[in-house]
C-alpha cells in the first residue's frame, strides 16, 4: 500500500486491511510515526511521542491478528489528547504545571482502547487544562491548522484535530467541556463526537469542569466514531457519574435509512447573527438529509443566549476547585526556594498556570465566594435547568437538533487572544449541549475559502446512534468528509 493510502484511510478500512493481512500494524504504525516526525515541526500537534511503546504494541497486535484474536481496534494507531492519564507516559494537560508529570495509572478510556488492541502513538497538544478554543493557551506552544498554517486549529482538542487532519493517526481522542471536540473538528474538517454526559468514564481524565467534561472520539468518518465510541463507552465503577446503561454496538447499529427523521432547526441558531456563508453550508448539508427522507422542523430554544453566561459561571467555578490540587506539594510544578507555605502556593500556582487558566480560576472563585454564590453560581445552576428544559421540550417534536458547530472558519493566530469574551463566543453553538449533557457531533459540511466548516447534530440523551446515523448518511451522499489539506506541503 502507498503511504498516502495508509495515512488517509479510515479506521474501518484499515481494520479490514489489517485483518486481511494486506498491511501489518507495524507498517501502519511506522507510517504514522514517520508522518508525525515529518510534520510535527510545523504543526506542533503532538507533545509526547512514544515510538518504542507503539512499535511494541503494534507487533503484539500483529501477533494477535495472526492468531485471529482481535478486538475492535487491534493494530489501529491512535493519539490521545494529553488530558488522558497514561501509565508511565508523561501527561501534561498542556500546562507547565504538569510538564514533568508521569501518572502511575491509565485513564479508563486509555485502558479500554488498549484492551481493544489500539496502538498508542503519543499524546496530543491542547489548550492548557482544556481552557481555550484556539490551542493558543498551551504551554507547549500553539498548534497550527493543517489547512492553513497561519490559522488556529480550534480548541481545546486542537492538537488531536490537527493531527488527524494531517494524517498522523486515523483516530484521536478528545474531551469536550463546552465544544472542545466539535469546534476543532469543524475547524480542521474532521468528524468529532461528544457523547452524552455519563456515557464515557471520566476516571483518569484530568478534570476541567466535572459536570460538563466528556471524552469522545475524532475520526475521518462517522462510522469510525461509532467504532471508537463503542470501545470507549460504558459504566465504570470508578466514576460515580458514568451511566449505568448498556452500551449498544454503535457500529453494528449504523443505518443509512433516515426516512422520517425529524431534524429541528432552532431559530436562535439560524438568526441574523449567523455568518451567511456558514448558514449556506449548513443549510446545504441539511438539504442533503432532507432529500434522504428527513424532515426539517423549525423549533425554538428560547434560552439559548443564556448558555454563554451560564457556562462561564459553572465551568470556572468547578475548575477553580478542580485545579486547587495543583499546589506544589504532591506532584507537578513547584517554585524554586519557597520561603514559606504561602509563598509555595502563590508562586507555584502563578508560575505553573498560564493566563487563561488563572483568569478562569479567578472568575470561578469569585462566583462561589461569600455574597456572590446566589447571584452567580446558584443562579447559573437554575438557568442550566431552564436551558436543559428547552431541549427536553424540543425533543418532544424532533429526533435531532441541527446547527453550526462554530460561528466561522479557522481564524488567524492572535485574532481573538486579547479579548477573552470574543474567544468565548467561538463556543456559542456548542456550550448548551454540555450544559444539558446531550450528545453532539460535528461533521464536515464543505469549505469556505478553502477552510472547513462543520455541521453540528445534537441528539437526545444517550441516543448517539441517531446522530451517528444521520452523519453516516450525509457522508454517504456527500464527499466533504473526504476533503484533506495538502499533506505534502506539511512535510519539510
Amino acid at each position: 500500500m502507498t503511504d498516502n493510502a495508509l495515512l488517509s484511510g479510515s479506521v474501518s478500512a484499515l481494520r479490514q486491511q489489517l485483518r486481511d493481512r494486506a498491511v501489518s500494524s507495524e507498517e501502519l504504525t511506522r507510517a504514522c510515526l514517520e508522518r508525525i516526525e515529518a510534520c510535527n515541526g510545523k504543526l506542533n500537534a503532538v507533545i509526547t511521542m512514544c515510538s518504542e511503546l507503539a512499535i511494541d504494541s503494534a507487533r503484539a497486535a500483529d501477533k494477535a491478528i495472526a492468531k485471529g484474536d482481535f478486538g475492535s481496534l487491534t493494530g489501529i494507531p491512535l493519539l490521545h489528547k494529553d488530558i488522558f492519564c497514561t501509565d508511565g507516559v508523561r501527561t501534561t494537560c498542556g500546562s507547565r504545571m504538569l510538564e514533568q508529570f508521569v501518572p502511575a495509572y491509565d485513564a479508563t478510556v486509555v485502558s479500554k482502547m488498549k484492551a481493544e488492541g489500539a496502538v498508542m502513538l503519543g499524546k496530543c497538544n491542547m489548550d492548557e487544562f482544556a481552557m481555550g478554543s484556539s490551542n493558543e493557551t498551551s504551554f507547549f506552544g500553539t498548534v497550527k491548522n493543517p489547512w492553513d498554517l497561519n490559522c488556529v486549529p480550534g480548541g481545546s482538542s486542537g492538537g488531536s484535530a490537527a493531527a488527524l487532519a494531517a494524517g498522523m493517526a486515523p483516530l484521536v481522542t478528545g474531551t469536550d467541556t463546552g465544544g472542545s471536540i466539535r469546534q476543532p473538528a469543524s475547524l480542521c474538517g474532521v468528524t468529532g463526537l461528544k457523547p452524552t454526559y455519563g456515557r464515557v468514564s471520566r476516571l483518569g481524565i484530568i478534570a476541567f469542569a466535572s459536570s460538563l467534561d466528556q471524552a469522545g472520539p475524532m475520526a475521518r468518518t462517522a462510522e469510525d466514531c461509532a467504532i471508537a465510541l463503542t470501545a470507549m463507552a460504558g459504566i465504570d465503577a470508578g466514576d460515580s457519574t458514568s451511566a449505568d446503561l448498556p452500551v449498544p454496538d454503535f457500529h453494528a447499529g449504523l443505518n443509512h435509512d433516515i426516512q422520517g427523521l425529524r431534524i429541528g432547526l432552532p431559530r436562535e441558531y439560524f438568526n441574523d447573527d449567523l455568518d451567511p456563508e456558514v448558514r449556506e453550508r449548513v443549510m446545504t448539508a441539511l438539504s442533503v438529509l432532507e432529500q434522504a427522507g428527513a424532515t426539517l422542523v423549525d423549533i425554538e430554544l428560547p434560552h439559548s443566549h443564556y448558555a454563554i453566561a451560564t457556562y462561564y459561571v459553572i465551568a470556572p467555578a468547578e475548575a477553580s476547585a478542580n485545579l486547587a490540587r495543583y499546589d506544589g506539594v504532591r506532584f507537578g510544578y513547584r517554585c524554586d526556594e519557597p520561603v514559606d507555605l504561602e509563598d509555595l502556593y502563590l508562586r507555584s500556582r502563578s508560575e505553573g498556570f498560564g493566563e487563561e487558566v488563572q483568569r478562569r480560576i479567578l472568575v470561578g472563585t469569585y462566583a462561589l465566594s461569600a455574597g456572590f454564590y446566589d447571584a452567580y453560581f446558584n443562579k447559573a445552576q437554575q438557568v442550566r435547568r431552564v436551558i436543559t428544559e428547552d431541549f427536553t421540550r424540543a425533543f418532544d417534536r424532533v429526533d435531532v437538533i441541527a446547527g453550526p458547530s462554530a460561528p466561522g472558519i479557522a481564524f488567524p493566530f492572535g485574532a481573538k487572544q486579547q479579548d477573552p469574551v470574543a474567544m468565548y463566543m467561538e463556543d456559542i453553538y456548542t456550550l448548551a449541549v454540555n450544559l444539558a449533557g446531550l450528545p453532539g457531533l460535528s461533521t464536515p459540511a464543505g469549505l469556505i475559502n478553502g477552510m472547513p466548516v462543520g455541521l453540528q447534530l445534537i441528539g437526545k440523551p444517550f441516543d448517539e446512534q441517531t446522530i451517528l446515523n444521520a452523519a453516516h448518511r450525509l457522508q454517504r451522499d456527500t464527499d466533504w468528509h473526504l476533503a484533506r489539506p495538502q499533506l505534502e506541503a506539511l512535510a519539510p
Partner: protein
Amino acid sequence: MSWETVIGLEVHLQLATQSKIFSGSATVFGAAPNEQADAVDLGMPGMLPVLNEEAVRYAVKFGLGIGARIGERSVFDRKNYFYPDLPKGYQVSQFFAPIVCEGVFEVALEDGTLYPIRITRAHLEEDAGKSVHDAFSRETGIDLNRAGTPLLEIVTEPDFRSAEQAVAYLKALHSLVTYLGISDGNMAEGSMRCDINISLREKGSDALGTRTEIKNVNSFRFVERAIHSEYERQADILDNGGSITQETRLYDAEQNVTRSMRSKEVANDYRYFPEPDLLPIVIDAEYIESVRATLPELPGAKRMRFTAEYGLNEYDAALLVPNHSLADYFESVVTAGGAAKPAANWILGDLTAALNRSETDITDSPVSAKQLAGLIVRIEDGTLSSKLAKQVFDALWAGEGDADQIIEARGLKQVSDSGALESMVEAVIAANPAQVAQYLAADEAKQKKLSGFFVGQIMKASKGQANPQMVNELLLLKLNDQS
C-alpha cells in the same frame, strides 16, 4: 456580673469502616507515612471519588439511633481551602443537605433524669491528613494516610449550660456509637474529636453572646477543663467591659488555657458548592427499615430494662449500661445464675477495681461471668460470708479455678452447723466472764456494742468461717441465758 455559659458541640466521629469513604485504601491506624494513601487520597489528577456504602449505612444507623430524620436526598459539597494536609484543596463534606437531619438525643444525667439535647444535623465527610512538625528541622512533613477516612460530624444546638452537661452528652454519645458499632470510639487515636462553641450571656438573658470555637479537643477531661478555662477567660473580659472576638482557639492542656489560632486568622471563605463528581444519595423508606432492623438495643432502652427487669437502681444501671461489654458481662452473670443486685455490686465494685488496677478491659477479665455467677450463688446460699467471698474472688482473679473448686481446696466453707457453732459460742462465753458481767450490766444500746467483742472472738476461733448471722443469733440467746 453573673454569667451563664452557652455551649454547642461538634463531634467528628471516625466511622469504623474497613476502607476509606471515597477510595479502597485501608483505614488502619498507625501505618508508615503515606503507605495507606492511594491516588484518590492523594488528589492525583484525574482521580474520582466513589462512595463507601458502609459509611452511608453507619450514618443512617446513627440517625435512627437518635430518632433523627434521615435526609431522603442528601448531597456532598466541596469545602474549599488551602492547607498541605488537604490534598485536593477542598474537603468533600455535606453542607446544604446532610444525611442526618434534626433529632433529639436524651442524655441520662447521673441521677437518672433525662436531659434532651437537640441535634442540628450529622453529615458525612472525609478526614484530612496529618502535618508532622517535629520530624524535620526546616520542613513540615505531610502524611496523608488519614486523608479520606470517613467522618460523621455531629452538630448540636447550643443546648448545654455547663461543662458537666457537655461531658455527660459526650459520654452518652460515645456509648451510643459503640453500641451501634459504627465507631471504635478510641479517643486516643482520634476516633472522636470535639469542637466546642462557647459563649457567655447574662443570667436570664435569651440573647446569645459572641462565641469562640475551641478546636479538636480529644478527651472528656480536656473538654471539661477547656470549657472551664474558656469560661474564666471570657468572663474576665466581659467583667472588665471588654468584648469577645469571634475566633478559633486551641486548648493547651499543659498550661490549661485556650489560645487563639493565629494561622487561621486569614478570613476563610469556604465557597461551598455541590460536589459534581458525586451524585445525590437517595435513601428510601425500605432502606431505612432494613437498617432499622439491624439496630441493637440502645443504651436508653437497656437502662430502663435493667431497672425494670433486674430491679437495679438508676445509679447502678447508669454505670453498667454505657459500656456495652460491661452490660453484656452483667447479663451473662445473671444468665449463669448470679442474682442481679449482687452481680451489679460485684461488677461495679471489686471487679471494676481489679480491672482498673491491672488496666484490663472487661472483655479480657480473668474472672469469667460464669465464675462470678458461681461465687454469687455460694454467697446467696450461705456457703460464703462476704469476707470469705472476697478471698474467693481474689483466688478467682488469680486463676485458681471456679468458686466451688477454690472453696473446696482452701476449705473456706462457712460453718452453719448450729451444733458446732453453739459449742464455739459457749466456749467463748466461758472464757470471758468479765466481759459477760459487763454485758449483763449494760443498757440495751451498750449491749449491742459489747456483743461485737464476742462475735470477733468467735469468728477468730472459726478462722472466719462461722456464719455471722447464725453466730449473732446464738450469741444473744446464750448471753441472755446467763442472766
